[in-house]
């Protein structure tokens, strides 16, 4: 009759889990790849933050700075025939999967060279060639869509999986639970990846849910779960690698709860405000759990300083090039508007 539920415990303590990423046994190449990929997300988003601040980027931008390890750690286990879906905060998903940086920045600026031809902005990203079938800002919307993509993958029978990236807030939408049940009762190979950053806009999870560990919802649907430190790319990668392999050989759902933290406000570039509400959280402490910093410490220990510096320069240059590309691109032609509604270009 009584309910004893685990909560996230030390995983939400910014003073804990600051240890460097364990890279023993991992090749330099693999380590550097992680670093490069996370840094690409970080620097791209910092550049976008700058454009938001200056007013150059006008669409709503939700930055995942601080959360890079989740998508990057998973992405290396995925293949282009997998089907991934995100939401409003999906720059990291897009870039980690290998979406074009230039097309991302162009999209943010509303240019026709953007990944969505300038029709979507930051909240609507797509890169089907690398398996990202769409990210949209209605909270929870892509969860059942990913579940259906998993149904397709299961019917295809080629071991592909679907991935649904979502936040802790999205677990409050009923459709998330409906999707868990569909996936469980039909044994669909969909990986629910929850980036639990403890916030839904301005509201801490304690104001919205009776317990901060959202993996409990999957358990109630008899779905296997792993709850982990989402700021440790070593853990993310090793756990998701095993999970994805298992799902490919025996189609079934799985839920990863990756505990992480966003550094910027819910939307926009600021660190001191969430949707107009002043932040009172302990951001400085969380910054000590920086997923990139924790990897860098290990890399430094291994003596990769030089390579790190090279990557830094190279990524920074890529970002500069992407901005130039985006800025010099055109806006979509006006008469396109009515021919993008239907697939045959028929005007409504």
């Amino acid at each position, binding site marked *: 009759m009584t309910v004893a539920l685990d909560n996230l415990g030390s995983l939400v303590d910014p003073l804990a889990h600051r240890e460097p990423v364990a890279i023993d046994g991992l090749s330099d190449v693999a380590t550097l790849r992680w670093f490069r990929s996370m840094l690409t997300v970080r620097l791209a988003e910092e550049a976008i933050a700058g454009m938001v601040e200056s007013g150059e980027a006008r669409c709503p931008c939700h930055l995942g700075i601080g959360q890079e390890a989740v998508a990057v750690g998973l992405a290396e286990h995925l293949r282009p025939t997998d089907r991934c879906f995100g939401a409003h905060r999906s720059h990291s998903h897009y870039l980690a999967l290998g979406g074009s940086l230039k097309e991302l920045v162009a999209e943010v600026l509303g240019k026709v060279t953007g990944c969505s031809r300038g029709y979507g902005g930051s909240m609507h990203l797509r890169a089907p060639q690398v398996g990202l079938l769409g990210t949209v800002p209605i909270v929870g*919307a892509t969860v059942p869509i990913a579940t259906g993509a998993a149904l397709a993958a299961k019917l295809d029978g080629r071991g592909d999986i679907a991935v649904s990236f979502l936040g802790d807030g999205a677990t409050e939408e009923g459709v998330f639970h409906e999707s868990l049940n569909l996936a469980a009762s039909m044994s669909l190979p969909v990986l629910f990846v929850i980036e639990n950053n403890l916030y839904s806009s301005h509201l801490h999870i304690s104001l919205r849910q009776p317990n901060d560990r959202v993996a409990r919802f999957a358990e109630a649907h008899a779905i296997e779960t792993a709850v982990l430190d989402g700021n440790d790319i070593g853990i993310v990668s090793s756990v998701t690698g095993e999970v994805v392999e298992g799902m490919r050989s025996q189609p079934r759902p799985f839920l990863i709860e990756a505990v992480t933290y966003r550094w910027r406000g819910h939307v926009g570039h600021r660190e001191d405000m969430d949707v107009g509400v002043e932040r009172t959280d302990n951001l400085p402490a969380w910054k000590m759990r920086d997923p990139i910093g924790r990897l860098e410490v290990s890399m430094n220990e291994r003596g990769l300083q030089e390579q790190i510096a090279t990557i830094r320069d190279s990524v920074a240059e890529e970002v500069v090039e992407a901005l130039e590309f985006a800025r010099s691109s055109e806006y979509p032609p006006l008469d396109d508007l009515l021919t993008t509604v*239907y697939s045959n270009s028929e005007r409504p």
Partner: protein
Amino acid sequence: MTSVQYGDAIREGFQYLLGTDPSVVVIGQGLWSPWYVGNTMRDLEHKFGKDRVIDTPVSELACTGAAIGAAMSGYRPIVTHPRVDFALLAIDQMVNQAAKWNSMFGGQAPVPVVFRLIVNRGGEQGAQHSQSLYSWFAHIPGLRVVTPATPADARDLLIAATFSDDPVVYIDDRWLYDLDADIGVPAPVDLSKIEPQVLRQGSDITLVGFSWTTRLMTQAADQLALDGVDAEVIDLRVLNPLHLEKVFASVAKTGRLVVAEGDWSSCGVAAEVICQCVTELGPASFSSAPARINLAQSPAPTSRPLEASYYPTVDDVVRAARASCDANPKTEAVAQ
């Protein structure tokens, strides 16, 4: 040509689709039960397997989203809601997601899904088991909406909807399941080429219907003919995108228009048809005021006599058509 009932014709459509295209899957609540889908799915789960004809938990939103996801992954799913009313739980996926997906991604991301909604009303089922809401879907750019009124269309527009690369709302009506007609073999057609159909030529007045009200219009025309009124009957077939050229041509000829819709009047399809005729043709093309016939402007009641008064009848159409023909507004116009 063989005589086939509307309900069986839908089943023929499903059989054709499942039999000819392995990417077609059907998913929805009640697919294995005649209470929910009448005879339109009879035995298909046995014939084509329960992994292609999927009966589901009671989760309208997720099932609809799942169909959309499968549509993005190489399949042509048909998701069925056995009552339009239940589909209201799935509106986000239909309207915020499927309808906008291609446009949101710059015209590069088609979603070939069919939302089959069944209008199932009458029989004292009441307010939550009665709706059709055609105009809601007709209002949304990005959706195609088809409302078959005949057995041939019931089958062929289902096939066309499934082979369309856009999200299509296909609305069939249980009240038509016993309507029969001779139909040929299925021949795939391009949904975007489907236009309204003139079911009866006439010169005195234009009667426009769709789905169930097309039947009303045809019956009313027969009755009007006995009185010497020669009515032209047009079945709209596709409500979105709405192509009214044939209706314009007819009204330009007859100067009189009655539109019937099995739904509420306010902001309905009949309002749209009348508005377009007036704005396109100009008021001077009308010999009398156009008229519309709709449901009583209330939620559906249960009690039998209330139900009987709630739904429009052939008599209502005949009365409106007669009133239109009796009026002589050209004189009024001069008088004004």
